[in-house]
């Protein structure tokens, strides 16, 4: 036993897979202890806020201000003028403004703006330009007006008696706040989703739920498969024929279709996480049954089983002590694969809208479903679905890697 464990942890594939899985598991367990926030709290008042730190504007305005001698203009200019705008400005200046190409540096926004303001004339002769493009330049010019002006922002408050605005202060362009001074701030490492929930917190909660789904599905499938496989393999005869028939029947029915039908007939209201997991387990036991059966058939005529019979052991004891330990490594491998396929099956079901219906828990599949329904892939909100995809991929990758590692140890023919 000790030797086997040592061997298992010497397989690089198993170790890598195990490390990834342990890391995910630890993160899922430790994160909620550190960040005490309801994973399903709708923080954002709107869809798909970008990842980043959000600070309270009021706190920032009212808090301590620091003056820093930093060129703030080019920074904010860069933010305001897109690179395609800059390229268009350069084009216009070369074609119609009579500026030599060598004089224009697109990366120096201030000099570009200076050139633009001295040379741009909407009434200039612009032969060969589309009318729409011409109007675009007019719009661009209007939006650039006043961009170089450096006015202080006035802070005013409404006087509650007179109803007039009274100036309480100004903010110069070189004034800064330290984000640490701002009391109300929140970092969304992965932004928010369509409900305004923090994606990172939700993702880790969903991973926990999905792992539970995988575990329940794996346990159910492995137990059924093991029980039927042991029964049909050890007893043989009519029992074997009947169980093999049922197993073959379930093997040829595509289990995913069966899963969809069962999930659908259970109904939206009754579909909780545990029920969906059990249904997944109930539809995926066939391969475990088949392989356990074939292994038991080859074991049941071994001499040590015969000797055990001659020693007067009961059938139950023979199955548990003389057969089960010999197929245990195989069953563990099958169990790992069942967990992985259970998680994937949940994701597939949820993508079709047949997953757990409850709004009190998130699963990886449900997160993808929501992101899909709210068109996250179309509006560029990658943070709402991409981390979920990576998480599912990492879990199945690590579990499959563990399985391959175990396979190489227990099936020496595959060992490289």
């Amino acid at each position, binding site marked *: 036993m000790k030797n086997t464990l040592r061997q298992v942890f010497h397989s690089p594939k198993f170790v890598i897979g195990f490390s990834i899985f342990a890391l995910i598991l630890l993160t899922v367990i430790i994160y909620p202890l550190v960040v005490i926030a309801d994973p399903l709290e709708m923080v954002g008042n709107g869809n798909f806020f970008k990842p980043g730190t959000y600070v309270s504007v009021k706190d920032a305005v009212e808090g301590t201000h620091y003056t820093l001698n930093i060129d703030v203009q080019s920074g904010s200019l860069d933010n305001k003028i897109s690179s395609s705008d800059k390229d268009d400005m350069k084009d216009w200046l070369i074609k119609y403004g009579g500026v030599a190409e060598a004089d224009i540096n697109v990366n120096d926004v201030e000099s570009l703006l200076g050139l633009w303001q001295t040379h741009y004339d909407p009434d200039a002769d612009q032969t060969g330009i589309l009318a729409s493009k011409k109007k675009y330049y007019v719009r661009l010019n209007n939006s650039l007006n006043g961009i170089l002006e450096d006015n202080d922002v006035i802070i005013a408050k409404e006087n509650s008696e007179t109803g007039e605005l009274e100036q309480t202060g100004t903010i110069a362009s070189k004034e800064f706040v330290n984000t640490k001074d701002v009391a109300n701030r929140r970092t969304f490492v992965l932004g928010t989703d369509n409900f305004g929930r923090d994606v990172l917190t939700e993702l880790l909660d969903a991973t926990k739920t999905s792992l539970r789904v995988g575990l329940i599905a794996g346990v159910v499938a492995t137990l059924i498969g093991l029980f039927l496989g042991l029964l049909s393999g050890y007893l043989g005869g009519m029992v074997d024929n009947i169980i093999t028939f049922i197993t073959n029947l379930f093997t040829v029915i595509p289990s995913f279709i069966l899963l969809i039908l069962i999930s659908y007939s259970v109904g939206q209201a009754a579909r909780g996480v545990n029920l969906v997991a059990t249904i997944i387990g109930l539809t995926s036991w066939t391969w475990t049954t088949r392989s356990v059966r074939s292994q038991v058939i080859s074991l049941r005529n*071994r*001499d*040590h089983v*015969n*000797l*055990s*019979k*001659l*020693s*007067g*052991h*009961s*059938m139950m004891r023979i199955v548990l*002590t*003389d057969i089960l*330990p*010999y197929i245990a490594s195989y069953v563990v491998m099958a169990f790992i694969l069942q967990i992985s396929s259970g998680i994937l099956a949940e994701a597939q079901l949820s993508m079709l809208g047949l997953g757990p219906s409850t709004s009190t828990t998130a699963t990886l599949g449900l997160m993808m479903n929501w992101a899909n329904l709210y068109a996250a892939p179309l509006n560029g909100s990658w943070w709402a679905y991409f981390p979920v995809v990576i998480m599912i991929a990492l879990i199945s990758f690590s579990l499959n890697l563990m399985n391959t590692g175990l396979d190489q140890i227990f099936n020496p023919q595959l060992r490289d």
Partner: protein
Amino acid sequence: MSDKRASCLKGNGVTKVFGFGDKKTVAVNNVDFDFREGEIVSIVGESGSGKTTLSKMLLGLISVTEGEVLFQGKPRDISTGQKKREYWKGIQAIFQDPFSSYNMFNKIDSVLLDCINMRGGKSLPYEKKFEMMREACSFVNLEFKELTNKYPFELSGGQMQRLMIARIFLLKPKILLADEPTSMIDACSRATILDMLLKLRDEINMTIIFITHDIGLAYYISDSVYIMEHGKFVEHGKAEDVILHPKAAYTQRLINDVPKIYEEWDLSTV
């Protein structure tokens, strides 16, 4: 001499058929036998002649297709698990391959303790059980103190087979079915093991049914010999009669096929 002893295991028209229809194989075909108490009987035949199938039927590990088996004069009844366990108190076996005869997850102690429990010693104090195990091990020249808490795969093949005999020593069955117990073991250990089997026979007066393909060995140890070919007994009788004066052509061939050290081996007869 053997005729005076009581019949221990008797078979009338015992037949085993595997499969049905086109795939039907008759492994053991209508054999009669009568094994006497305290006798050493050899069943000799080449591979595939049905020796092992017959031995499994005698042990009650597989069903008998046709015919009846009488145990100590009465038709044996192994219809239920309880009756089977009762039957196995009277008949035990040593298998061919010592390496696959043990459950590698169980320690040696549990193998021997099972035997004590089976003989009704479940409630004995541990010191008593320990003494019994030590005695059984010393009977086969093993030191129980060195074996306790070890796993069977930590022993050599010869030691494992001797442990098997220690098991039989504890169980004290009426009949021991030894299915080629020495074929996987080197020549030196072979003599030791045969010696121990004979010693054990004398000690508890049990019948040994010795299944082998080695006719020389059969002559060396047995009182009577059954020659088996294609599921049938072609010849049986006292060992000296059968082997020194063989009547059946098959027996003749088996005897000729035994390699002799000082003679050129004639492969044309094989």
